[in-house]
């Protein structure tokens, strides 16, 4: 892969999207019936792809340490469980999380760039990013300037992503499009192409602060954009739906969609993440049910 100078794509030439067709395709993914061994494999894969997240104004070091403990000890009674992929926190909590996770192999991801609105000067966004990276974040989840995007000021959006990417250094950059604010799947696909051309390592649906957050139609549209970018440039970009994916069945539907859209190369935590806070326990409950045959109660699963 060559590190060519990023070039802004012509968004007028991005492939159009028909929403009804996307929804029909999504309905087909949802109609897949995942059973027995393939279900266990899918649930474990989903677990390994989770960015366990807390992004509250009320977050404290104590809360973050508890979350990190959960990340490393998902459900001790079950052997052979993977860990989650990362813990995702605000920049001020990165160092706490980094310490708490130690050498567990779990990454620290941090939102940055005046998350969630992105309404701050570029210099503040870059400082935010550098601070998180210096504190130990291996992954940065930035937000795009939706106002500028919707106003047609693509230069601003593009240049910001390029600048943040530079500020990230070796940290992976996930670019949050906040699709719930973009208004149409056509705009989602255009924003995806813009973000990838600017150097995004991942594209991500949502901050979790705006409804709707991740949806399957939005995610499918972004997966198609990722495929187009890959076929055209050879550069593989990851995908992270975030917000609203709270139950295991939904996560399996997303994996079906990934499996049948981008295929095996993306079916790893390296290239696909779920941004979620409560998904992990539901996946664990389903795994327990697969193992024991009994439907589970949340009372038997630790909540942090």
């Amino acid at each position, binding site marked *: 892969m060559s590190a060519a100078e990023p070039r802004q794509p012509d968004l007028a030439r991005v*492939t*159009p*999207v*028909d929403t*009804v*067709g*996307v929804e*029909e*395709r999504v309905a087909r993914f949802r*109609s*897949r*019936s*995942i*059973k*027995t*061994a*393939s*279900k266990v*494999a*899918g649930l474990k*894969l989903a677990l390994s792809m989770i960015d366990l997240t807390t992004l509250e104004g009320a977050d404290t070091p104590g809360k973050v340490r508890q979350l990190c403990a959960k990340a490393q000890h998902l459900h001790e009674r079950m052997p052979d469980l993977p860990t989650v992929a990362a813990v995702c926190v605000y920049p001020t909590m990165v160092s706490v999380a980094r310490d708490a996770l130690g050498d567990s192999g779990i990454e620290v991801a941090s939102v940055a760039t005046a998350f969630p609105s992105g309404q701050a000067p570029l210099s503040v966004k870059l400082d935010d990013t550098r601070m998180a990276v210096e504190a130990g974040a291996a992954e940065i989840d930035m937000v795009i300037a939706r106002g500028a995007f919707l106003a047609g000021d693509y230069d601003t959006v593009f240049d910001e992503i390029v600048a943040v990417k530079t500020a990230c250094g070796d940290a992976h950059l996930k670019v949050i499009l906040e699709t719930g604010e973009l208004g149409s799947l056509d705009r989602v696909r255009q924003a995806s192409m813009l973000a990838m051309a600017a150097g995004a390592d991942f594209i991500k649906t949502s901050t979790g602060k705006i409804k709707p957050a991740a949806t399957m139609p939005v995610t499918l549209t972004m997966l*198609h954009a990722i*495929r187009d970018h*890959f*076929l055209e*440039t*050879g550069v593989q970009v990851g995908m992270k739906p975030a917000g609203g994916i709270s139950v295991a069945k939904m996560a399996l539907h997303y*994996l079906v969609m990934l*499996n*049948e859209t*981008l*295929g*095996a*190369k993306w*079916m790893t935590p390296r290239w696909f993440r779920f941004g979620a806070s409560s998904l992990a326990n539901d996946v664990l409950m389903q795994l327990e049910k697969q193992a024991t045959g009994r439907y589970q109660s949340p009372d038997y699963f630790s909540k942090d």
Partner: protein
Amino acid sequence: MATKSTLAFEPGWQYDPAPESTDHVSLRDSYGLFIDGEFTPAASGKTFETINPATQAPIASIAQAGSEDVDRAVAAARKAYDTVWSKMKPAERGKYVFRIARAIAERAREFAVVESMDGGKPIRESRDIDIPLASAHFFYYAGWADKLNYAFPGVNPKSLGVAGQVIPWNFPLLMAAWKLAPALAAGNTVVLKPAETTPLTALKLAELVADVGLPPGVVNIVTGAGDTGAALVRHPDLDKFAFTGSTAVGRDIMRTLAGTGTPYTLELGGKAANIVLEDAALDQAVEGIVNGIFFNQGHVCCAGSRLLVSEAIAEPLLDRLRTRIDTLIVGDPLDKNTDVGAINSEAQLARINEYIDIGRAEGAEIWQGGSDAPQSGYYCRPTLITGVAQSNRVVQEEIFGPVLTVQTFRTFDEAREKANNTPYGLSGGVWTDKGSRIFKMTGALRAGVVWANTFNKFDPTSPFGGYKESGMGREGGLHGLGAYLDLGMGAGA
């Protein structure tokens, strides 16, 4: 770039078998003819077997109706028309049809399983499309029964009498619904002949109409092959005939009915063009192409069997199409994850393979994708035929299988001309992001159903039927209702 980047789907996450449960299905070992409210054997005592095309195992023994049995069925329908059905208050008649709709919905899963066992279609389709649409069709037409004067104001519409109906094997229950629902709501009684390879859901429907208390003789179902259908179409006491099936048989029917004055509706073959213009939403177009030709193994008269794609996007579109086809799961119709089920019969599989051979002999390139097919049973993997022109037989003739021919064009007019350059005119598709172009192309296609940025959609309210050799008359919607009514001079026949 030196090498082209490609996606990889193997080894992917493989889904374990997810078989639909069959323990709630009740099937008898043998079924008689349903005449005058009762199951009776054929006068000749003859039977035939209906088999499961996925396993080649016999499912049940079915009575084979001869002309004597057809006589009896028409007489029962006539008696029911004269004594009961034509005398019933329209609102009451409608309530019976509503009952049928609800009863099908109640037994939907059982019907879906039987449909997939008997015909080979994926349970996902029979469960999500065929059976719900069949129920919805009865529900839609039921409401018309007491509103006919509003449907056709000023002509005092009247029922016709006894309708003979012959339906095909590709959508067995749905086609029965398309035929029965408007006929009954309009006040006619019916003798229906299902296809010989797929009689079971029609016979289950016979049980159902008896269960809901429909007066005996209003619906009669006679099973058998072409001879039974021929006896029915030749019967002198019919007031209406309706047929869905091949153009060749439709032509025979038209000749048979010539001069009788019996009004008829024919839904026949097709060779629809699915046109992708250069500005199309490519990924949804791919989906529409897949749905257009691989839905129900391509056993669809309105299938989008000819892909016409702009040269400007042919390569990326075909790349994406092949990739998509490779994710299709070919296999057990009763597995909930199956996308492409079994070919309906040994004869149909032979016919499809013959066309593939013809294409190869004509110098075309044959590509097959999707998962491997099971070793036993009748299967055909999704097939693309490229390197063909209008003059190829595989482009001209209806294959009725999961086989798509691919042609390119350069201009809008060339696409339109190629699309219309066929004796058929049942359906068509156009994919473009430009509104004005949609209306130009949908207007220019000489076909009865045109899908813009979608394909193979059906609804009880939506009229369906062909131009030219694809048939005459409409089924569905208001126009389909008119086909079962006497609307006065000049309107009907």
